[in-house]
């Protein structure tokens, strides 16, 4: 019986395992050093916030693994010997495989600041990070203030977490508005003011210079590039993530920032595959970055690879881009491509609408030459994935999308509709780029 070994029990690895089990009888072993069972990484925040217990963020009950004959091993893979198809564990012992899937995900990305080794400096990626935060910032007596470096999705989650324990939060954001490297300016500004309204001391155009410690090796303060010293007990590093591949450095598997794979998710070594956050496409797919550190893409790679492993080769060929997040109380969904000011395509025109409440806004992006609908960002209004996926495939015009926007609404029953307001704003706009 062919033995499939998967390193990593995140969404990519587990999706691959589940689908391989559905399609075949192969022996499947899943190795993780992080946890016994698969959990939803995107839900780590809710444990600290007291919305859920640890076991609530595990999508499958513990009998699931045995029932589906998915063997779980808790160990840290130290070396990968592809010649002998063997993995060696840090704890001792080894395991052999016929096919190897590497799905080790990401780790916190840092920029070599002084003081990174101090107690209280941490990211928010793993279960260990969650436990550290519980230790470093249990309440606002032990930790009156935390500084978060970087304003992205993890940064805002961390801010929300800390604010539930009434810990003062200062956020250093390099851009002039929140996540402005990804979001169009009006949206980024709306999120900035929402973050501030939650009591976060949000500093735009601010960067970290160094982290200062006390004589016990704990964080004492940080210093910004402007020279300001901000006392704090925790420094959250949320300046993005990078593939977790350090254990491969002595292996023959070719890596760059991530593990280099082709469209079939194959590495340079036969029978070794990489999926999820740790994989790097040799050629980027469409507008997608070569490394996609997103829950959904991890899942999609797992779905595709399982077919390949089970004898029906499929390339990783994702459909229309989509993503979602939540900034405190404001939900965000995106379908297709809407670029920020700095990344705006030369053919791209955008239409913005913002609700008077400053809690909802929509940006619709189109090709200014052909009028083709390219993508939508929606904040505070839920919209249907299926409908936008269809419109993108059908290459609908932006006028068609605006006209039929109601079809895409996914807000709960009885919620106020904003389509009319959006349509009026669209009709009244002077076309600008």
């Amino acid at each position, binding site marked *: 019986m062919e033995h499939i070994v998967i390193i990593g029990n995140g*969404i990519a690895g587990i999706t691959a395992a589940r689908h391989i089990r*559905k399609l075949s009888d192969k022996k499947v072993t899943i190795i993780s050093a992080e946890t016994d*069972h698969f959990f*939803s990484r*995107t*839900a780590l925040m809710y*444990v600290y*916030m*007291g*919305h*859920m*217990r*640890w*076991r*609530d*963020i595990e*999508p499958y*009950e513990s009998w699931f693994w045995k029932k589906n004959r998915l063997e779980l091993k808790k160990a840290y893979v130290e070396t990968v010997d592809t010649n002998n198809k063997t993995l060696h564990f840090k704890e001792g012992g080894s395991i052999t495989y016929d096919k190897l899937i590497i799905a080790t995900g990401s780790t916190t990305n840092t920029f070599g600041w002084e003081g990174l080794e101090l107690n209280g400096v941490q990211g928010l990626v793993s279960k260990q990070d969650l*436990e550290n935060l*519980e230790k470093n910032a*249990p*309440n606002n*007596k032990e930790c009156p203030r935390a500084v978060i470096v970087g304003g992205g999705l993890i940064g805002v989650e961390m801010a929300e977490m800390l604010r*539930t*324990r009434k810990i003062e939060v200062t956020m250093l954001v390099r851009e002039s508005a929140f996540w402005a490297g990804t979001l169009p300016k009006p949206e980024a500004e709306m999120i900035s003011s929402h973050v501030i*309204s*939650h009591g976060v001391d949000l500093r735009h155009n601010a960067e970290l210079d160094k982290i200062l410690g006390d004589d016990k090796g704990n964080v004492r303060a940080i210093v910004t590039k402007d020279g300001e010293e901000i006392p704090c007990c925790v420094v959250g590093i949320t300046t993005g993530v990078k593939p977790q591949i350090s254990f491969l450095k002595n292996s023959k598997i070719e890596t760059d920032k991530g593990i280099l794979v082709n469209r079939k998710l194959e590495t340079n070594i036969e029978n070794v595959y990489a999926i999820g956050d740790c994989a790097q496409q040799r050629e980027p797919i469409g507008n997608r970055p070569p490394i996609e550190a997103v*829950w*959904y893409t991890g*899942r*999609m790679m797992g*779905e*595709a690879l399982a*077919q390949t492993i089970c004898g*029906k080769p*499929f*390339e*990783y*060929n*994702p*459909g*229309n881009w*989509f993503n979602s*997040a*939540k900034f*405190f*109380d404001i*939900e965000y*969904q995106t379908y297709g491509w809407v670029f920020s000011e700095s990344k705006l395509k030369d053919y791209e025109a955008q239409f913005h609408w913002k609700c008077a409440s400053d809690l909802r806004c929509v940006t619709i992006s189109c090709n200014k030459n052909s009028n083709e609908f390219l993508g939508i960002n929606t904040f505070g209004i*839920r*919209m249907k*994935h*299926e409908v936008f*996926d269809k419109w993108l*495939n059908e290459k609908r015009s932006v006028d068609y999308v605006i006209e039929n926007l109601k079809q895409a609404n*996914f807000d*709960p*029953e*009885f*919620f106020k509709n904003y389509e009319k307001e959006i349509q009026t704003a669209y009709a009244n706009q002077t076309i600008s780029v």
Partner: protein
Amino acid sequence: MSTVQRNMSLTGEPPKTINTQQKLASAIGLIGLALLFLALFNLNFPNKTLWLSTSLGMIAVGIIWFSIAAYQNKHEGIKNDGVYFKSLSSRGFWAWVLGITVTLFYVVLYWFPQYLGLVKDGDNKAIVALFDPLSKLLNGGPASQWFVYGTLYTLAILAFGIKFILKYRHNKYEKLRTFSVMFFQLGFAFLIPELMQRLNSDSFKLPYYDLKNIWPLNYYNFEQYRVDEFISAGDIGLGLLIFGVVSIFVITPILTYKYGKRWYCSWVCGCGGLAETAGDPFRHLSDKRQVAWKVERWVIHSVLVFVVLMTTAVVHSYLGDDSSKYWLTKDVFLICVATLLTLVFTGVWIFKREELQKDARIGSIAYLVIILSLVGLHFATGKTLFLFNAETLRQSYGFLIGAVFSGVIGVGFYPIFGSRVWCRFGCPMAAILGFQQRLFSRFRITTNGGQCISCGNCSTYCEMGIDVRAYAQKGENIVRSSCVGCGICSAVCPRGVLKLENGPLEKRIDSNEILLGNDVDLMNYVNK
């Protein structure tokens, strides 16, 4: 995992304290409650109207002020911070104190009302006497323990309903639904029956009851004394009797087809009303394990069979044998019941067989065989119907299901098992509505393409213990018998994945192995 759990709550000291206003509000509410306690110990209040108003007023003000203080300075949005850190909402010390207190209250209420001050022939004492003025105002007579209970129950739904509305003030579905349960509790469950009672005199006796309390939830609706009263009360009584029958056989199926069982369970029903308001802080305590779901299916359907048998036996016991006097004789009635059950069974078996799980098939056949053979046995041997005395059946049902299950366990154990234990495991009305909802209704919870991140908020905050996430992460619509359509899964979803909808029956349940967003060819190949 459990060790980690303990560590987290020990090392961390998350904020779980309440603010000063909330403390004051709690004090006011508790003093109001304490006044009732004093009455319990037969402290004779000189001016009952004043003291009762003060007590109930303080309880209401306490709850409402507490809620305002809790939510006024917060943004509109989800308010689940610290739910699992608070003793009361995470099965801690205070949860047990509350659970035991409420359970004791139910025990006294059902079986020892004399300790509440109920005096059968003569003036009431203690707490029941305290409620006499209000009772006299509404129905003209002295209070009973049920009047005390009804008043407190209504007060709880109204005051905690306001709390719920403040908590979900950003969500219009939740607000409307809560207004609705508050309205039906105050009007239909509380005021109308009391006013109906006023119509009664020595010469005219009409059963006064909560009109929306439909058989089989209202398991005694067709008992002899009630039917006699209905019939002797002339046209109004007959109208009510017909309404009772039409409610379950016509109105309920139509509304459930159109909107799912939520029209009743989370918009109208009094049990649901209490669960959604006073029970809301405990909704996450429901058991989400698959084994709980299995137990649920057997227990709730067994209660349904029990109530059908019991009602059949009771109605049978008072019908006549002579068809020349009245067309509905014992035999005609039994044949009607057997025919109806057989028709429902055959219909489902022919049209919906594919949708029944293995245990549902076994269970439905077994139960049908039991009922039909009991009926057959009766005709063949002429013995007492169902081998049991109808009155014994009725009494055991009333004790086991009506009192112990729905009251003591259903409400008393809110802080331990969650707020919908009765609705999930016991309510025969929910079983009927759920059966239809699963097989023949436009209602479903739709999932939004591939957007689910498996976070678990939906499952955690499902009061019915449905593992919503298990469906959402497969891109499958949620069509479950037990879903009462409270809409909280949709509200707490951080990625806008869930929506309660009524739509066509075709493609109502669509499961996808590969979720939307991936390769179109792969989806076509796998999903077919």
